[in-house]
């Protein structure tokens, strides 16, 4: 008769991490995106608001970026709100999209240390038993962020857990990381993004306008 074992998929807390033992990401995309509401002011501000890899308890603020515009939308406040609604109540106002802007930036990653949470070998190098350490409970994911910052990480690469697949980057506000954002460009309104509107249409979203 088989004996029961601990659930291997259960996320664990970080231990003390040593920089030289961590398998840091070798390749990091250069182009990144943001989706930000006009009321937010600086779209590239590093936040201390409690979220997956940010919070008042961390030594640095965090800037969340996405590798494509669609993932960025679903990770934005509006995208997350839609994701929290019942599936047949995905109605937004025209202004919700008109007041949201897409920004792009170029990241010069050389000399920085990024931890790739989507890489199983990298997760093993820090003793994370499962990818859920970085994708499920926010408090636990933050504790991993804190441990990685202490070990010298400038950011964490992770897969979006929202509606749209896409790589995301939580960039920590270290002096080195802040200097690696080479250009910041306001691309346009979300309302003018045909690819995004097509995605929203496919997902059953509707728009109301006065």
């Amino acid at each position, binding site marked *: 008769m088989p004996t029961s074992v601990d659930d291997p998929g259960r996320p664990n807390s970080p231990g003390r991490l040593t920089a030289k033992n961590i398998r840091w990401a070798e390749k990091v995309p250069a182009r990144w995106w943001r989706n930000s509401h006009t009321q937010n002011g600086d779209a590239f501000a590093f936040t201390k608001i409690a979220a997956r890899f940010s919070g008042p308890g961390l030594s640095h603020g965090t800037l969340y970026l996405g590798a494509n515009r669609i993932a960025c939308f679903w990770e934005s406040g509006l995208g997350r709100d839609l994701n929290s609604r019942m599936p047949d109540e995905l109605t937004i*106002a025209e202004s919700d999209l008109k007041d949201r802007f897409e920004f792009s930036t170029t990241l010069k990653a050389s000399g920085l240390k990024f931890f790739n949470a989507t890489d199983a070998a990298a997760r093993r190098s820090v003793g994370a038993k499962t990818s859920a350490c970085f994708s499920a409970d926010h408090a636990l994911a933050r504790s991993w962020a804190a441990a990685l910052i202490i070990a010298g990480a400038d950011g964490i690469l992770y897969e979006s857990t929202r509606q749209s697949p896409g790589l995301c980057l939580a960039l920590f506000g270290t002096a080195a990381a802040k200097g690696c954002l080479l250009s910041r460009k306001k691309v346009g309104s979300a309302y003018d993004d*045909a690819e995004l509107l097509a995605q929203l249409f496919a997902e059953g979203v509707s728009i109301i306008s006065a």
Partner: protein
Amino acid sequence: MSTALTVDPKFEKQAAFQLLAKFDLPAGEMAEVFASYLKLRPATFRDLKGLRGALKQRGTAAQNDILQRAGKILSTEEMAERLGLSSRQSVHNLKARKRLLTISFANRRGEYFPAFQIDAGSVREWVPHVLERVPDGWAALAFLTAGRKEFDGESYLTRVIQNSEAAGEMLAAADAYIS
């Protein structure tokens, strides 16, 4: 017509958007059909008008659902009466100061006010706080009335009307809404 569909991608796309909007497919089927279609004909800047039109066409029905969930809608005169104000101008002043949630309609003149924001002759305390975060009337109404998965389909509006202490969680969500 069938020839035009095959030789004019622009026309084909408009037709596809309209047809898909009209059939009102379940979200899962819609996503599957549309994703396949977009592989053949990726959306471009030239499709913006068609896509906006299709999203808004679907929005007409959704707007009615939102109004139903919002409950009674008042005219400016009715709102003045509920608040014990002597003139329409006083209501407009409250609206201008973002104290009242106001909506308008493309096919109707004037402005309208959901009655839920009034309690015992006064504007509920949380209303201006919501409008600070989500100033557009329709956006605020959609946000307030949407059923939430975490509350088994209950909306923030239902929760806060039942218990004003739920305003804190609703305002935190409104903060996140514009992040």
